[in-house]
């Protein structure tokens, strides 16, 4: 090689290296640089104050809070608004006291263990199965090549021959056959003129005359259940209250879009059987909806070969029949079943209105679908006459009484710092999804917000942002998380401004399709979990990195007055909200 060629090659190599170095950006744009910033707020002098402190990037924040002559408690809420775990937790230094408020790794409060214990939490009564791994690790069979779609389009949905006294076998969720008898058929024309028929089937081994269970279903129980879901008249049953919010559960459009979905039908089937065959009258799985049944049967498919080819959901017969002597649908477990009716019906509608119609077959993230179902139980509690996840009497508009151990909120208070969006199928996941949904519904339009969440094409947090925007709210998801957290801490007041309300001492009302929906007030300090009352607030920040999309509540000062100065190290994922009360 001549000297000139050598030089040319060297120059080319240098240029390539230089270009590569300059064009390679930091991994994900992350910067490890920390900036010194200052922020300050002044207490207004009345009531509770909430300050959303705005920062960008990793910051060493000097935060000044002037309380004047007022003596107040000061709370910091750290919100991880990112979809990644923060690399470290926030660190708070109170400069006046010159003390660290960051917990050392050797000082292990019980809360450190609690974050991991969410995965192992044992639910009592649950909508849906508890074992994720069981579902995900089912043997996968090799599936024969798919038949052409034309085969499905020639198949109508099987004609229903449901009549009271008819018998058939259903497949349960794992493909086992359940022999059952139709115990009730009831029809009506709903408010929009669309006919609807509900067929209630009871597993033969759960029926009074042939029952092998601890509690057995009778005709009176079936009639009472039917009456809750559908009855003569307008706007007076779960079917109408739910469809008025979310839309109808099925239409011919389903089969037109996907030819292997069952054709239009106006029939809904409810199967009462002993879910998981556990013969448990006081816990376990209360009910479920399985979209498998919305498909035509396919013998070569390991899942679809067990389709019941119906719009249907499943409820636990033994729990339902455990209603006291004499049996009454208002007793605890029948009430759980009624609430579950509404919960599972939302899943059924959600599947059609979103997954079939709007998202090219992509389902919502689980926390969103469950949030919608839990708030459905909440918003229909008044009409269904069951207490619902709020845990307060359905007819009580106020936040109820202290020492309340009912509903979802006691557990939520204890686990209020877990990730909202990560799903481990434990009751704390349901609890936090409900708590966030309950906040959104009370602050951003109630029934209309729920409709907008379901009837859009987003399957993640954007479904909520879109719904907020449709309602005319400029609140984005991150801001909603922060405002929600503040609403937790000030829920003992009934005079908070919009956007921060869990509690106004009265109903939160919303109207849709001529129906007025009522949501009762919530005071999180009324709820007791074990020996703890109210929201869990740290006095020392855990050392573990803060989970994605989560809030952490920290008591920064008690009975403080004058000017407070804090130095806070905030990773870029974490935003600070200050609550003075």
């Amino acid at each position, binding site marked *: 090689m001549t000297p000139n060629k050598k030089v040319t090659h060297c120059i080319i190599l240098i240029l390539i290296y230089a270009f590569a170095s300059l064009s390679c950006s930091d991994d994900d744009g992350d910067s490890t640089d920390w900036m010194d910033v200052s922020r300050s707020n002044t207490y207004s002098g009345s009531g509770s104050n909430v300050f959303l402190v705005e920062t960008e990037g990793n910051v060493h924040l000097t935060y000044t809070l002037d309380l004047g002559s007022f003596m107040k408690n000061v709370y910091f809420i750290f919100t991880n608004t990112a979809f990644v775990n923060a690399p470290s937790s926030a660190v708070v230094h109170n400069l006046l006291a010159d003390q660290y408020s960051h917990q050392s790794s050797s000082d292990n409060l019980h809360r450190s263990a609690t974050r991991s214990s969410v995965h192992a939490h044992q639910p009592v009564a649950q909508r849906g199965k508890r074992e994720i791994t069981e579902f995900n690790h089912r043997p*996968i069979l090799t599936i024969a090549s798919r038949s052409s779609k034309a085969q499905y389009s020639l198949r109508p949905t099987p004609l229903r021959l449901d009549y009271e006294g008819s018998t058939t076998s259903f497949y349960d969720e794992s493909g086992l056959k359940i022999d059952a008898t139709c115990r009730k058929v009831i029809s009506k024309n709903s408010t929009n003129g669309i006919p609807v028929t509900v067929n209630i089937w009871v597993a033969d081994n759960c029926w009074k005359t042939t029952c092998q269970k601890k509690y057995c279903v009778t005709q009176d129980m079936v009639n009472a259940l039917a009456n809750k879901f559908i009855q003569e008249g307008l706007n007076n049953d779960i079917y109408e209250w739910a469809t008025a919010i979310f839309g109808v559960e099925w239409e011919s459009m389903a089969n037109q879009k996907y030819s292997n979905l069952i054709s239009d039908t106006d029939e809904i089937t409810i199967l009462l059987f002993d879910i998981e065959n556990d013969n448990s009258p006081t816990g376990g799985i209360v009910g479920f909806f399985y979209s498998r049944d919305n498909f035509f049967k396919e013998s070569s498919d390991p899942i679809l070969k067990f389709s019941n080819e119906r719009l249907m959901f499943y409820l636990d017969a033994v729990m339902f029949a455990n209603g006291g002597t004499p049996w009454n649908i208002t007793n605890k477990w029948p009430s759980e079943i009624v609430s579950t009716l509404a919960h599972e019906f939302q899943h059924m509608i959600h599947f059609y209105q979103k997954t079939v119609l709007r998202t090219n077959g992509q389902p919502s993230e689980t926390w969103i679908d469950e949030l919608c179902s839990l708030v459905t139980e909440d918003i229909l509690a008044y009409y269904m006459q069951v207490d619902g996840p709020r845990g307060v009497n359905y007819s009580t508009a106020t936040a109820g009484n202290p020492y309340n151990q009912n509903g979802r909120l006691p557990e939520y208070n204890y686990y209020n710092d877990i990730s909202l969006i990560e799903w481990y199928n434990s009751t704390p996941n349901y609890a936090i999804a409900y708590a966030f949904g309950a906040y959104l519904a009370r602050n951003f339009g109630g029934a209309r917000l729920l409709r907008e969440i379901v009837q859009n094409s987003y399957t993640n947090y954007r479904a909520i942002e879109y719904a907020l925007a449709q309602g005319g709210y400029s609140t984005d998801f991150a801001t909603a998380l922060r405002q929600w957290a503040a609403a937790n801490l000030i829920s003992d007041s009934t005079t908070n401004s919009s956007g921060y309300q869990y509690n106004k001492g009265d109903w939160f009302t919303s109207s849709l399709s001529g129906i007025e929906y009522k949501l009762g007030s919530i005071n999180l300090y009324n709820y007791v979990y074990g020996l703890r009352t109210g929201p869990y607030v740290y006095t020392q920040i855990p050392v573990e990195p803060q989970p994605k999309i989560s809030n952490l509540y920290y008591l920064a000062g008690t009975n403080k007055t004058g000017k407070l100065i804090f130095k806070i190290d905030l990773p870029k994922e974490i935003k600070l909200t200050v609550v003075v009360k």
Partner: protein
Amino acid sequence: MKRFLKTLASLTLICLAIFINFSCDHKQYAGTISYSGNSPFHKLILTTDDGTQFELVGNLTKDLISHQYTRIVIVGKEIAPFKGPGFPAQIEIIKVISMSK
């Protein structure tokens, strides 16, 4: 010469077998994982950069449960096509190449 040709033929066959085994039905997939669908039938979903969704199945999924909303790169084999709404194509994970924190 004969021996050389035999050896060459054997090596070629071996290389071809390896190539076929690892390239025909094993592919690399990259995207973010999350749980979707109503409980208890929620599925571990990989959403690729172009928005395509796959359900992840197999023994290695248990290692991913704690990494929801994490970007991962895997090698997998499609074992079932898209069935319809709520039932995306299934990928059996052969190997997890990387997981972002």
